[in-house]
C-alpha cells in the first residue's frame, strides 16, 4: 500500500470539503447562529425577568402578621384589604378590574411553611419576586427574636443544596445541570460532526461515480489507498469541526461564573476523555465506512440520501431515548444500546456523564464496536471495489452476496460499459 498516495487523497478530501459551503455553514455559521440565538434569548429573558414596569400597583395581604409598619415597602406596594369571605374571588376581581397588577398573600402559617401565594394575570418577572422576598426578609429580621426561625435562614429563605448520589459531593444547581447536560451536548456535537463528514464521504464517492471519475482514479491508486485517504481526510475534518465547536463553547462558557460552574459538574477523568476519543474515532470510521459503501453501491445522490437517513436514525436512537438514560442510565435499554455497535459510542458517552459505567460493559462494547468496525471497513472496501465501476446500476445486497460467495472481483452483471 502506498501511504503517500493515501496522504494526497486525504489532503484533497480535507481541503476541498473544508472549503465547501456545506461544511463552512455547519462548522462555523451554525454554531454562531446557535450562540447568537442563545444570546438574544438570554437578553430577552434577562430583560423580561428584571423589568417590573408592568407592576406599578402590587397589593399584599398579611394573614401571618409579619409585615411591620416601620419597614418601608417597595414603591407601589400597598396593603390590600380583603373580605374574610370569598377573599380569592375578590382578589381576582381586583386584578380583572386592573385595580391591582399583582397580589402577594402571606399565609397564616407562613413561619412554619413559608407559603406565599401570588396572584396575577401577567407573567411574573423574577425581579418582582425578589423585591417581595427582600421586603419579606426585612420584615422578618425586624421582628428579631420574636420569631422562632434563624435569621440567616430568613435573609436567604431558599438556599437549595443538591448532592450527587454516588459521591455525596455538594454541587451547585448549575454544576448539577452541567453534569447531566455536558455529555448530551458532547454527544450532540459528536453526532453532528460524524454525520456531516461521513455524508461528505458518501457525497464524494457518489460524485466520483456519477461523474465517471472513479475509473481514472482507479488507474492511479488502489481502492484501499483511496478509501484510507478519504477516511483520513474526512476524520481530520470532523475533528476540526468538533474542536472548533467545543473550544468556542468552552471559551464562551468559561468567561461567565455560571459557565464555569456548569463545566465543573462534568467530572470526566483522563480515562473517560481517552475513552471518548477512541469511541469517537471508531464511530466515525464505522459511520464513514457505511456511508462509503452506500455511496459506492448506489447510482445517484438522491438514492444515497435515503439510505443515509435510515443509518442516521439508528445512530441517533440514544439521543431520542435520552429520557430513559436520565431516569435510569443502568436500565436494560441504555445497556443494550451500549452493546449495539451503531449506538454504543453515543450511549456510552451519555452514560459516563450520568453514572459509573461498569468496566465489563465498556469492554464488551469496545469488543463489539472494534469487531464491527473492522468488518464494515472490509465490507465497504469490497463494495467500493465492486460498485465503483457499476455506472447506472445499483449494487444490490443479492449481487454483493453472490460476488462474495464466488469470490469474484466483479459481480455477476452484464452491464459493465463497453
Amino acid at each position, binding site marked *: 500500500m502506498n501511504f503517500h498516495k493515501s496522504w*494526497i487523497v486525504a489532503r484533497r478530501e480535507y481541503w476541498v470539503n473544508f472549503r465547501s459551503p456545506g461544511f463552512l455553514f455547519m462548522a462555523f455559521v451554525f454554531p454562531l447562529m446557535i450562540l447568537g440565538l442563545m444570546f438574544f434569548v438570554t437578553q430577552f429573558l434577562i430583560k423580561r425577568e428584571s423589568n417590573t414596569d408592568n407592576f406599578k400597583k402590587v397589593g399584599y395581604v398579611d394573614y401571618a402578621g409579619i409585615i411591620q409598619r416601620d419597614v418601608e415597602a417597595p414603591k407601589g406596594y400597598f396593603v390590600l384589604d380583603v373580605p374574610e369571605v370569598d377573599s380569592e374571588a375578590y382578589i381576582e376581581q381586583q386584578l380583572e378590574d386592573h385595580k391591582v397588577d399583582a397580589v402577594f398573600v402571606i399565609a397564616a402559617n407562613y413561619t412554619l411553611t413559608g407559603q406565599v401565594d401570588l396572584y396575577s394575570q401577567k407573567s411574573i418577572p423574577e425581579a418582582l419576586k425578589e423585591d417581595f422576598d427582600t421586603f419579606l426578609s426585612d420584615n422578618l429580621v425586624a421582628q428579631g427574636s420574636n420569631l422562632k426561625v434563624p435569621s440567616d435562614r430568613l435573609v436567604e429563605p431558599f438556599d437549595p443544596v443538591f448532592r450527587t448520589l454516588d459521591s455525596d459531593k455538594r454541587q451547585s444547581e448549575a454544576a448539577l445541570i452541567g453534569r447531566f447536560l455536558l455529555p448530551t451536548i458532547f454527544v450532540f456535537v459528536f453526532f453532528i460532526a460524524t454525520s456531516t463528514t461521513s455524508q461528505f464521504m458518501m457525497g464524494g464517492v457518489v460524485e466520483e461515480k456519477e461523474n*465517471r471519475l472513479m*475509473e*481514472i482514479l482507479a488507474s*492511479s491508486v488502489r481502492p484501499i489507498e483511496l478509501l484510507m485517504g478519504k477516511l483520513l481526510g474526512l476524520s481530520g475534518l470532523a475533528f476540526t469541526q468538533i474542536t472548533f465547536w467545543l473550544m468556542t463553547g468552552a471559551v464562551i462558557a468559561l468567561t461567565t461564573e455560571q459557565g464555569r460552574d456548569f463545566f465543573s459538574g462534568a467530572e470526566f477523568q483522563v480515562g473517560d476523555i481517552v475513552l471518548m476519543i477512541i469511541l469517537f474515532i471508531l464511530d466515525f470510521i464505522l459511520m464513514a465506512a457505511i456511508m462509503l459503501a452506500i455511496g459506492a453501491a448506489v447510482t445517484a445522490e438522491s438514492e444515497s440520501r435515503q439510505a443515509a437517513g435510515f443509518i442516521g436514525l439508528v445512530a441517533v436512537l440514544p439521543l431520542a431515548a435520552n429520557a430513559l438514560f436520565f431516569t435510569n442510565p443502568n436500565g436494560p435499554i441504555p445497556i443494550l444500546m451500549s452493546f449495539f455497535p451503531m449506538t454504543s459510542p453515543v450511549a456510552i458517552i451519555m452514560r459516563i456523564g450520568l453514572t459509573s459505567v461498569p468496566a465489563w460493559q465498556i469492554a464488551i462494547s469496545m469488543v463489539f464496536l472494534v469487531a464491527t468496525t473492522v468488518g464494515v471497513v472490509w465490507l465497504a472496501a469490497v463494495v467500493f471495489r465492486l460498485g465503483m465501476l457499476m455506472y447506472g446500476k445499483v449494487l444490490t445486497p443479492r449481487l454483493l452476496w*453472490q460476488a462474495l460467495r464466488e469470490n469474484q472481483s466483479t459481480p*455477476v452483471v*452484464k452491464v459493465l460499459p*463497453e
Partner: protein
Amino acid sequence: MSTASTSSTLENAIFVQDITKRYGDFTAVDHVHFEVKRGEIFSLLGPNGAGKTTIIRMILDILRPDDGQIQVLGGVLTDATKDRVGYLPEERGLYKNVKVLEMLVYLGQLKGMSAHDARLRAVDLLEHLGLSDNVKSKISQLSKGMQQKVQFIATILHKPELLIIDEPFSGLDPVNTQLIQDLLYEMKAEGVTIVMSTHQMHQVEEMADRLLMINKGQRVLYGPVKEVRQTYAQNAVIVEGEGNWATVPGVKEVQAGRNGHEAKLMLAPGFKPDDVMQILASRQDYAVRRFELAVPSLNEIFIQVVGGNGSRAEARFADVRAAD
C-alpha cells in the same frame, strides 16, 4: 522466464497471454492473446459489448482476469508501473466544482508527480491546447469540448510511456480532433506506445500501425492494418473516367461506385489488376483519370467480420499470413 519471453517482454509494451474474464455464466473475454509493441499505435476494435473495455481494465489491473497473464512495460503491473501509464477511459468525467489547474495538479500527484512539476506541466499543456485562459476556471464552466481536452491533458500530464485511450476523439470538433491527433503523433515520435480503442475506423486506418478486433469476447482480427486490409481485398479495381467498362477484357461485372463517378470492376478468375491496367492504357476509347485496387475500408471489414462469422475471419487472416 525464458529467454524468448524475456526478449518479448522487452520488445513489447503490453503482453497479453490467453486471458479470460467471466461474469457468472457470461464470458466477456475468451482466451484472448496479443502483444503491443513499444512505440507503435495499436488499435483495439470491436462492436459495443465485445469486451474491449474489460480487456483495458484488466491491463490496468482494475479488473483481474480469471485465466491468463498480462505484462505491462516489462512485468506485472505494479504501483510504480501505474505511474508510467496514462489512461483515458471511455466513461470519463471530472470534478465539476474544482478549478482546472487544481484538479490537474491533484491527478498529476496521484501519478507520482510533485505538485510543482504537475503545475508547470499542466500550465504548459493547457497553453498548448488553447486553454490558457481557463486555468482558473471551474470545470463546470467549460464547454464539453474543453472538458474533453482537459481530460486528455490529465491523461498525458505525467509523460506516460504507455497511453491507453478509449474513444479519444468522441465529443471533439474537427479542429480539436486534429489537435489531439497531432499531439498523439508527437508522442509517438517520442517513443510513447499508444493503445487506442475507437469506433472511428478512418482514424484507425490513418493512425494505427496494428490492430486487434474482438467480437463477443474473442479475437477475430489481429495484425498490421495494411495487411488486414490487403487480406480482405477483392479481385477488383476502382476506376474513374470514360468508356464502356463492361467490354474490357477480363472484367466479369461492373458495380456502380460510391460517389456516382467511379466504377468497381470485378475481375474474372485468371486476370490481375495489372492486366486490366495494361489493356486500358493501350486503348484509345477509354479515358482513365483514376485507377486503384479495390481494397476495402476497415469499416467494410468491420461490418463484414462482425456481421458474419468472426472466428472464420480470424482463421482466414491467419491462413493468409501463414501463406505469406
